[in-house]
């Protein structure tokens, strides 16, 4: 039998070797992705068969239109096959960050703007700067500066809102208030022009035994929208935009009286029973379906449910949450929709760019218009819109907010962990488990941690 000391020595040696072998700074060295040169000719190069893998999170009507657009693109460029990987919003968020950096990753992706997703990808050198393609295809002239800014990052991923373009879209989103026209008139109410009037409408609906705001927060993300548009009426747009972009680092705090007041308002509405009973556990999709069936006077959510309610519907209308005071600015949360980006590791950058151009073309936006996707590009013709329909309401509201410069980006873009932090905190706020002050303190803690960690 071998003497123990020798055995122990050898064991220690093995462990030491293993430790040394394993000990190295994790994470590969990062080379910032360089933009491919401006193509001499736009379109797909005719260099043999190309498979483009596209990752998206579209559902319902929009997804079907994507199928159609994909088929049309393949018909236009016969050497291209599109391989589509479709996952829901939450899944895509989890999968994208790491999948895009693996050898067989996708070519084109829908990468959510903001620090958690696009910012991290840019920092890792995983997205291609699109500037040269933007020049070649004329993308920069088609949309406003705001739309480009939310997909812009400095090449090292340290600054948001300036620098290279990493994603492109011509469709926009807006959060607002849908209303049931019949119920509104039955209750003898008019469209509110101030926030206090809106609250009176809520109380009236409640008294009449109706659900004032159809709402379901089981999926966590809707809560952010409810909070955000209240906050939009109380805090200044400049402050919010700077907060989200992080341009002023730790000079700005989330813990402000306005934000506290917004939280207090939201909690107050929940306590007064203005939201659907049992909203904490219910699913978003069933809330939308219920609203469509006439349950609920208002529903606060985004333009994407237009397809569910019917673009040409005259039973439902849409308006922006009104400002605190009469004549105040029209503000809401929204802006550019999901952009398309090109993975840095792709071998078919030119084809990918041509695909993006196709999916953001006038033809595409015409098809998507009926699902409630709002075209943001210049020359978008909304003349064909029938006024008085739901779609027209949505488009008009967006135009108003845009004209007033009152479009605030989504708040969960503000830090890599903001989505998690905000969704959880809002759930607790609306269940009356934390006070508005605790709410803002908790969120500020996330915000300041991030700002101080930025180099």
């Amino acid at each position, binding site marked *: 039998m071998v003497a123990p000391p020798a055995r122990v020595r050898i064991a220690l040696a093995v462990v030491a070797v*293993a*430790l040394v*072998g*394993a*000990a*190295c*700074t*994790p*994470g*590969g*060295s*990062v080379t910032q992705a360089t933009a491919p040169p401006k193509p001499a000719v736009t379109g797909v190069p005719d260099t043999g068969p190309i498979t483009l893998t596209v990752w998206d999170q579209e559902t319902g009507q929009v997804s079907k239109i994507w199928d159609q657009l994909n088929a049309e693109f393949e018909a236009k460029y016969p050497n291209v096959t599109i391989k589509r990987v479709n996952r829901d919003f939450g899944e895509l*968020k*989890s*999968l994208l*960050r*790491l999948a895009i*950096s693996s050898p067989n990753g996708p070519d084109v992706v829908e990468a959510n703007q903001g620090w*958690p997703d696009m910012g*991290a*990808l840019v*920092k*890792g050198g*995983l997205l291609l700067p699109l500037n040269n393609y933007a020049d070649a295809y004329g993308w920069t002239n088609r949309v406003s500066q705001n739309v480009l800014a939310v997909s812009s990052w400095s090449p090292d991923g340290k600054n948001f809102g300036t620098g290279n373009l990493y994603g492109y879209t011509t469709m926009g989103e807006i959060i607002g208030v849908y209303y049931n026209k019949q119920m509104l008139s039955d209750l003898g109410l008019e469209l509110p022009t101030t926030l206090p009037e809106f609250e009176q409408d809520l109380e009236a609906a409640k008294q009449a035994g109706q659900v004032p705001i159809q709402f379901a927060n*089981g999926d*966590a993300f809707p809560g952010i929208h409810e909070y955000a548009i209240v906050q939009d009426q109380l805090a200044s747009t400049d402050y919010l935009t700077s907060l989200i972009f992080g341009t002023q680092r730790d000079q700005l705090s989330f813990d402000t009286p306005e934000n506290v007041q917004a939280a207090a308002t939201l909690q107050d509405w929940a306590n007064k029973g203005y939201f659907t*009973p*049992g*909203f*904490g*556990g*219910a699913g978003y999709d069933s809330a939308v379906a219920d609203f469509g069936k006439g349950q609920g006077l208002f529903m606060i959510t985004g333009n994407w449910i237009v397809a569910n309610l019917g673009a040409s519907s005259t039973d439902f209308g849409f308006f922006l949450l009104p400002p605190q005071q009469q004549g105040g600015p029209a503000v809401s949360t929204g802006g550019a929709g999901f952009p398309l980006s090109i993975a840095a590791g792709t071998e078919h950058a030119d084809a990918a760019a041509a695909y993006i151009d196709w999916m953001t073309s006038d033809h595409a936006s015409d098809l998507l218009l009926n699902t409630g996707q709002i075209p943001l590009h210049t020359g978008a013709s909304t003349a064909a819109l029938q006024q008085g329909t739901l779609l027209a309401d949505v488009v008009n509201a967006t135009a108003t907010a845009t004209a007033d410069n009152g479009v605030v980006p989504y708040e969960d873009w503000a830090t*890599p*962990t903001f*989505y*998690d932090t905000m969704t*959880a*905190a809002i*759930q*607790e706020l609306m*269940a009356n*488990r934390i006070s508005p002050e605790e709410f803002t303190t908790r969120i500020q803690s996330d915000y300041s941690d991030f700002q101080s960690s930025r180099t």
Partner: protein
Amino acid sequence: MDPGPQVATRAAALGSLRRRPERLPGEARRIGYLYVAPAFILYAAFNLLPLFQGINISFYNWDGITPGTWVGLDNYTEFFTDPTILAGYTHVLILMIFYAFLPIVIGLFLAALISRIRIRGLTVFRILLFLPLVITDVVTAVAWTWVYDINGPISTALRAIGLGRLVPAQGWLGDFNTALPAVGVFGLWGGFGFCLILFLAGVMKIPASLYEAARVDGANAIREFFAVTLPGLRYELQVVLVLSVIGTLDTFDEIYVMTGGGPGTATSVPAYLVWRRLFQTGQVGSAAALGIVLMLIIFAVTWAINRAMERGNEA
């Protein structure tokens, strides 16, 4: 309990190992290395080596993509400062009541109630009682999502007997107060059948003479239980305790399917936190640290339970 046959067999293995410390037998044969090599190479490459890599990663602040920054023990001290981590561990501690303590108590109680006579058709009962543990836990979790539906059996039954106001408006899995216990009841359901069968098998093996002796001494049913049954089941208890406690620490599947850690963070557990930090929030170093600590806790718990039971054995 979690996750099915896997943990049951492991704990059984651990348990039986404890009582036979012995020298490995056989004649000296060098060829043994060759036999063991394939398994060991795979195992070392995909289980042992990553352990060291994980320890290494846990000392860094890493987003998973760009080079990490060394932070020493920060990811570990976070355990005392980050409320979400503390919450996660608190939650599994609470779940242990449902996943470990209650199934064992109920199993013991039921096994004691059942008279020690041959039961015909025990096989059928065994099959039925084992089903909750054997069927894929994603499937049973989906089934229980329906059970907890606001119009599902529990809610319907309560309303039928006039206790409808007990049904939380947010649903059992959406209410901050009922979500975690709801997951717990799921675990209780999963494990009680296994405990019952296990203890029943154990009880059947206790010699009748012990019971007769107790009866002669004038013991009633309860005394019999504590004097004969319980000590007789000491070994099974040890195994099931280790199994269920470890299994609870590992909980992931049902959280992912039933609650997604919510509402808020009311049902977050360590394994779920690891997953979120690895994939969603880019806190990979922290995720690695969470995993390492989980392992250390499992080591400690296994050791402690085995120690305590052994001491009890000697007494």
